[in-house]
């Protein structure tokens, strides 16, 4: 479990991140979503024990950041923004090197290397030099490297970057599988679709966390969810508006293009009652669709809100030159 409280990082006079407070539970996939320079990499580097926070605190599976960084690095697997492999070594030699750094030895090391080469479908390229690999193949080896020592906490920076759709799905399925093993996983991504499909909760950040919630709850941010009810029959949608006005959970309704557009606070729970009421009133329903804003709309709205206001406080880009 990762517990973060008020984390802040400054590089000389540049404020990279501030007031970062969140938790990631065991078996949870937490997405960090934000534009370039939002501080995602800085946050991950602090939590992985690579750089020291300027202020704030965090514990990673009970180990306090700054006091036990070596142990934190030992239980952490990290997929960095760039694969960062050793070009002259083979895939197997790369993994074996990192396995030794994670204290794997002998048969245990060989088993782990073989297993994770197979997981990322790179067994047949195991003894080829990394310099000959495509971007996607390098990414696969880097993913294997991050998982090799069965880490309790995993940070994945753009895990499916450079992968073809099939390989990307394999990686997503594998990451989702790690959830059931109780690992705490943080995924940094620009890929909203991936975040929505993979993450249990998403933190949208720009210098700090702007909002943390489940993907479904984030989509409802800022406006009520609407349900569009398609009708077919002699009675027009206007004839049902009075009946809908009596329902306590309906916050608004209108007839639009031969359909009813109904605002609900919690569509997942209230739609069945809405449908039952309309059918009871004689409506012939041909379709019901939830019309929530996309995650992209919510993301752009949230990021845009802080954009101009805080630009003077934030780095123009990720902190590394």
């Amino acid at each position, binding site marked *: 479990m990762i517990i973060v409280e008020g984390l802040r990082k400054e*590089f000389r006079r540049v404020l990279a991140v501030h007031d970062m407070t969140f938790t990631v539970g065991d078996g949870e996939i937490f997405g960090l979503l934000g534009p370039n320079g939002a501080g995602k990499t800085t946050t991950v*580097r602090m939590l*992985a*024990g*690579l*750089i*020291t926070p300027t202020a704030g605190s965090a514990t990673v599976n009970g180990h306090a950041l700054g006091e036990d960084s*070596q*142990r934190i*690095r*030992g239980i*952490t697997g*990290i997929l*960095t*923004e*760039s*694969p*960062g*492999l*050793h*070009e*002259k*070594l083979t895939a197997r*030699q790369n993994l074996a*090197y*990192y396995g*030794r*750094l*994670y*204290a794997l030895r002998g048969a245990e090391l060989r088993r782990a290397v073989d297993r994770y080469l197979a997981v990322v479908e790179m067994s047949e390229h195991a003894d080829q*030099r990394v310099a000959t690999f495509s971007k996607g193949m390098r990414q696969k080896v*880097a993913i294997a*490297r991050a998982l090799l020592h069965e880490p309790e906490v995993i940070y994945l920076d753009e895990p499916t970057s450079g992968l073809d759709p099939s390989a990307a799905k394999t990686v997503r399925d594998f990451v989702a599988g790690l959830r059931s093993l109780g690992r705490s996983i943080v995924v940094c991504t620009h890929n909203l679709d991936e975040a929505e499909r993979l993450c249990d909760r998403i933190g949208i950040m720009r210098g700090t966390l702007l909002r943390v919630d489940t993907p479904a709850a984030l989509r409802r941010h800022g406006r009520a969810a609407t349900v569009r009810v398609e009708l077919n029959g002699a009675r027009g949608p206007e004839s049902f508006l009075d009946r809908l006005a009596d329902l306590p959970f309906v916050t608004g309704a209108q007839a639009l293009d031969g359909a009813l557009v109904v605002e609900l606070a919690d569509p997942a729970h209230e739609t069945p009652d809405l449908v039952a009421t309309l059918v009871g009133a004689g409506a012939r329903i041909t379709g019901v669709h939830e019309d929530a804003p996309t995650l992209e709309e919510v993301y752009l709205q949230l990021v845009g809100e802080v954009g101009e206001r805080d630009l003077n406080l934030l780095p123009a880009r990720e*902190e*590394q*030159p």
Partner: protein
Amino acid sequence: MRPAYVAAVFVKEWRDLLSNRLLLGAVAFPALVFAAIPTGLVAFIQVNNLDPHQLGQIHQYIANFPGIDPKVAAQAFIVTNFMAYFLLIPAMVPMAIATQSVVGEKVARSLEPQLATPLEVPELLAGKTIAAALPAVIATWGVFALYGYVNGAIADPRLTRFVFSDVWLVAMATLVPLICLFSVLLGIVVSSRVTDARTAQQIGGFVVIPIIGVAVAQFFGGHATFSMQQVILGDLLVAGLIGVAVIVGAWAFDRESILTRLA
């Protein structure tokens, strides 16, 4: 410092080095050139049976080798005077390897994944230092041994004894590894601040200037070789410089600054 981690870095670096034929060539080539020039001169004198008085100013210096045949004395002067250049190998070669290693990793962005493991920075640097210094030490010692035996074989066995003098054996055992270490540390310090291996090598190359100066002064001064006191003084001087380089290196190769200064 944990030996297993240093060994892991060393093995990785060594594999990397062995796969880089150009760099391996750079290790062996200078040593062979420095040995080949005087050996060629000795062979030339031997084959042509030259009188030392035909060898320009060299005949002035054969007095440094009293009681032996003037031709052998001239050969001994040549053999011993070029030996200062053996100190250039540990100054030049490890720096090329170390700068290539650090800058190469910065460019490939492979430092961050390593620093994200339980590996500590001193362990990383120790592994890199040994891997960069060892080829130069082995090359210097190997060519030094070859130099002594080959010159003895083609000219006179006494040349072997002049090469393997107490002073030079001590210099090889102490000064060569120390210069290697200093060269690697300087390479690492410079590399941590730049993102181009050639720039690092050019800046670090200043270390060879004093050694060239000593060699040239020695040659024109006509002194056959160093004294034991000079070797020990050299050891102390280089050891002091290593101490300074370790302090500067620890500051320059800080985990955070390396990560945030990546190219």
